[in-house]
């Protein structure tokens, strides 16, 4: 038989000013199982808590009801009180007679008191059905997996490594660096992208805690927080670890048939190549689809010229399986493919280029060594038109969102152009200027005031090729005029979208994504780097478009989250989770279908001797205790600890019974 103590709080006069607290306590004494009931001025104060501890000892109580304020306020306080008194912390229930009674029913003290008595009684009947719950612990594999070697992945890896934990950084290209490595300068400071990125890339390669796997991809994931098991495919590089990065092979390779994706396909790329001069690791790879040797069986020049015999044509793809405790997903973005824009020439007009192509053109390590020339005839440019919101804020292209960085990089590109070629004139077509960020608005103002960039508010309706010029027709909605500009080059501000294959990738982790394919964070405000999958975090543009400072901040945030997991010896898991009675489970998979966290596993299990059944099982470290499975289970085999069917049913019964003995 339960031994229950009921403690009624006055909360100064907050409660007692409306509710007859002594009557509530008196009524409590009449309830079955209640051994003691007292009222006190401030239950949450030290003396108040001590009253509870003393009563537990004197009356040998095993369950407590505190009639006071909202459990959202003080449930934790009283759980700790119970723990100090040597009771299981989950044996306390609170009756909310302040927020839900005295403060809202001050118009009728009699009814307020009766309701307070009822709520207290409901808590008593609930606590009588409470079960001892023990905090659970799960082991943690203290190694982190970071997927994506852009600035987000680099930062996350460095931060986690700095805390002393092992990190594996997986990058699908042959070098880390990501999109930031393609950029020339960065806004709003105009410092050189490579200059600030390269040291971080080198730091990654030199950090003893970081294992760098480039030219590699994650292919399979199982397990859960603390215990992820991940298969990684290391693609054959055809160059082994003896390589010293001298680059002779690349120089001598006669095959330059392919175009460099890194350079926006504006320049050639050898069959053996490093992504860019500052690549980390500085080890070239052979593209077997274009290499003459792999196609025809002849050539082998790279093997001949290599001073360290590092070229190895026999290398095979390798599949490795590793265990991780937490994962940071930083898979980045692609730019919107503007070939869907007929009015800009379906991507077929050579001198209408993407923003990333412009970055490569103006970069001194780019295909033209920093000379901004027209791709069609390599001539220098004079008039350049920039068009913003290409694949952003465009309902018709199903891209209604703002890509956040285009206003800024367009201003930057126009300024850089003027710096390089003072005689050029830039025009920018825009919808709105979105320059929210430290020193951002000032930056755009500089472009307009100091650099003479002409901003036209409106869209371009058509680009015509006219002789060797481009005729750009558009509207300037501020003056209401039709504008025609004869341009040498048109640069589109392509919006940001998820990497191709982002949806398929998210399925590896059962992460959810929005309609565009950006990964969903757990909560848009209060859990922006967590995902619905415990132990999997997101950083950078795979979650939504953002600039470099936000990306870096987000990456560091994920690192903090990962370190917080790793800092514990074992992982503590709230015990208020679901559990399956497998004897009554019918194996219909309804719970498995509805669980938002993939915390249900279906198993063929011997539930009775000699009887193997298809049944559900809750992954305790994954379950977050929402109870959707309980609401959905018609076999009534799943239950939720702390909010069990028995507890709620008893509350329902008590709530509908009239008050007795009052």
């Amino acid at each position, binding site marked *: 038989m339960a031994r229950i103590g009921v403690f009624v709080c006055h909360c100064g006069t907050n409660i007692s000013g409306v509710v007859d607290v002594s009557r509530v306590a008196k009524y409590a004494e009449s309830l079955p199982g209640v051994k003691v009931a007292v009222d006190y001025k401030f239950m949450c104060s030290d003396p108040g808590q001590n009253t509870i501890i003393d009563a537990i000892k004197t009356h040998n109580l095993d369950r407590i009801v505190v009639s006071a304020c909202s459990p959202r306020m003080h449930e934790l306080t009283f759980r700790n009180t119970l723990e100090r008194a040597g009771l299981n912390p989950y044996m306390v229930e609170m009756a909310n007679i302040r927020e839900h009674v005295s403060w809202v029913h001050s118009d009728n003290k009699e009814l307020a008191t009766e309701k307070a008595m009822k709520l207290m009684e409901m808590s008593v009947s609930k606590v009588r059905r409470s079960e001892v719950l023990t905090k659970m612990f799960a082991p943690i594999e203290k190694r982190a997996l970071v997927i994506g070697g852009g600035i987000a992945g680099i930062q996350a890896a460095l931060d986690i490594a700095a805390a002393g934990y092992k990190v594996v950084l997986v990058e699908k290209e042959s070098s880390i660096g990501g999109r930031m490595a393609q950029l020339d300068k960065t806004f709003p400071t105009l410092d050189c992208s490579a200059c600030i990125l390269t040291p971080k890339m080198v730091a990654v390669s030199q950090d003893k805690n970081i294992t760098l796997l480039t030219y590699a991809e994650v292919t399979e994931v199982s397990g859960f927080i603390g215990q992820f098991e991940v298969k990684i495919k290391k693609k054959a590089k055809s160059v082994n670890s003896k390589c010293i990065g001298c680059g002779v092979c690349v120089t001598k390779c006669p095959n330059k048939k392919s175009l460099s994706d890194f350079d926006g396909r504006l320049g050639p790329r050898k069959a053996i190549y490093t992504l860019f001069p500052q690549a980390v690791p500085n080890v070239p790879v052979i593209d077997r689809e274009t290499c003459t040797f792999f196609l025809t069986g002849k050539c082998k020049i790279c093997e001949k010229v290599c001073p360290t015999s590092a070229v190895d044509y026999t290398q095979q793809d390798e599949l490795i399986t590793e265990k991780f405790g937490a994962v940071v997903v930083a898979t980045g973005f692609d730019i919107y493919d503007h070939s869907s824009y007929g009015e800009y020439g379906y991507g077929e007009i050579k001198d209408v280029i993407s923003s990333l192509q412009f970055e490569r053109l103006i970069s001194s390590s780019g295909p033209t060594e920093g000379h901004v020339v027209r791709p069609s005839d390599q001539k220098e440019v004079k008039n350049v038109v920039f068009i913003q919101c290409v694949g952003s804020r465009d309902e*018709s292209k199903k891209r209604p969102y703002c890509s956040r960085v285009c206003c800024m990089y367009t201003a930057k590109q126009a300024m850089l152009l003027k710096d390089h070629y003072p005689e050029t004139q830039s025009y920018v077509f825009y919808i709105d200027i979105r320059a929210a960020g430290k020193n951002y608005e000032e930056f755009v103002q500089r472009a307009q005031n100091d650099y003479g960039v002409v901003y036209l508010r409106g869209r371009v309706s*058509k680009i015509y090729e006219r002789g060797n010029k481009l005729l750009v027709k558009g509207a300037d909605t501020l003056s209401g005029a039709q504008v025609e500009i004869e341009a040498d080059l048109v640069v589109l501000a392509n919006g940001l979208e998820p990497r191709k294959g982002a949806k398929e990738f998210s399925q590896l982790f059962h992460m959810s994504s929005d309609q565009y394919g950006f990964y969903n964070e757990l909560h848009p405000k209060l859990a922006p780097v967590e995902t619905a999958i415990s132990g999997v975090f997101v950083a950078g543009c795979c979650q939504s478009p953002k600039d470099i400072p936000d990306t870096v901040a987000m990456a560091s945030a994920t690192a903090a989250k990962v370190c917080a997991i790793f800092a514990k010896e074992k992982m503590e898991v709230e015990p208020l989770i679901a559990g399956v009675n497998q004897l009554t489970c019918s194996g219909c998979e309804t719970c498995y279908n509805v669980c938002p966290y993939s915390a249900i596993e279906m198993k063929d299990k011997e539930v009775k001797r000699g009887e193997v059944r298809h049944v559900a099982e809750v992954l305790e470290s994954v379950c977050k205790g929402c109870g959707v499975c309980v609401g959905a289970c018609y076999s009534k085999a799943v239950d939720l600890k702390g909010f069990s069917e028995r507890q709620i049913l008893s509350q329902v019964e008590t709530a509908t019974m009239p008050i007795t003995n009052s």
Partner: protein
Amino acid sequence: MLKVAYFPGCSLSSTAKEYDISTRLVCEDLEIDLVEIPDWICCGATTAHITSELTAAALPAKSLVWAEKQGLNITSPCSACFSRLKMAHLHIEKDPKLKKEVEEVIGEKYNGKTEVMHLTRILIEQYGIENIKAKIKKELKGLKIACYYGCLMTRPAEVCVNDRVENPMLMDNLVKALGAEPVKWYYKTECCGAGFSLTKTEIARKLSGDILKEAKDCGADLVMVACPLCHSNLDARQPEIAKLIKTELNIPVLYFTQVLGLALGYNSMDLMLNKHFINPKPLLKAKGIL
């Protein structure tokens, strides 16, 4: 045998008679069965759709329902008729309330089973370029043609099925198949100003002039069209435009069915080439086609 309901419309019964004649001729030659809708009524352009949504939908619905009953798709060579038929269909499909009203007005059920296809699509896509090629009697070698699509065939984007709104290629591909050379130009879908043809003629003159000049600059021998309104602007107004912009234009404007007819071996009289203001015969003779 390809069978399709035929909606000629008012232009093809009057100012664009040659379009109607050449269409029927070409289809007969290619063995495409055009079933003229008996008692076809006005498509509604442009008075209906600027005054009443219901009338604009109900007028074409009548013809659409007839075609549906025959189990036929429906075509019209006139871009305006095509546009109205197509838009009415799209509007009715999208708006259940309108559908109900239309059904009440026409007194029949509208199921939307009939597809509205412009004649270019019927010929080039359904009948097929390869099949046309097989029937060619005379290759139109050396003829540079600017294919002009105008607005009604291509806009809004929903009507432009299987082609690119901003740079349509259907007629260009046909021209190539006939042995002529399609000119690469950018004014394929620019506005000819037909909407202002009678009210603010100077706008129509300016816009049509731009198109003709661009065609000429890009080296076109003739402009090929698929719309009676475009034709009247580009052809009938050409002399006054030439005077206005002080440039000699003299660039014949033919319907695509006429060009196709030439390749199938028909002569000037068959195709009513004499009906044009800019006489195409000297050019065609010079190229050895007539």
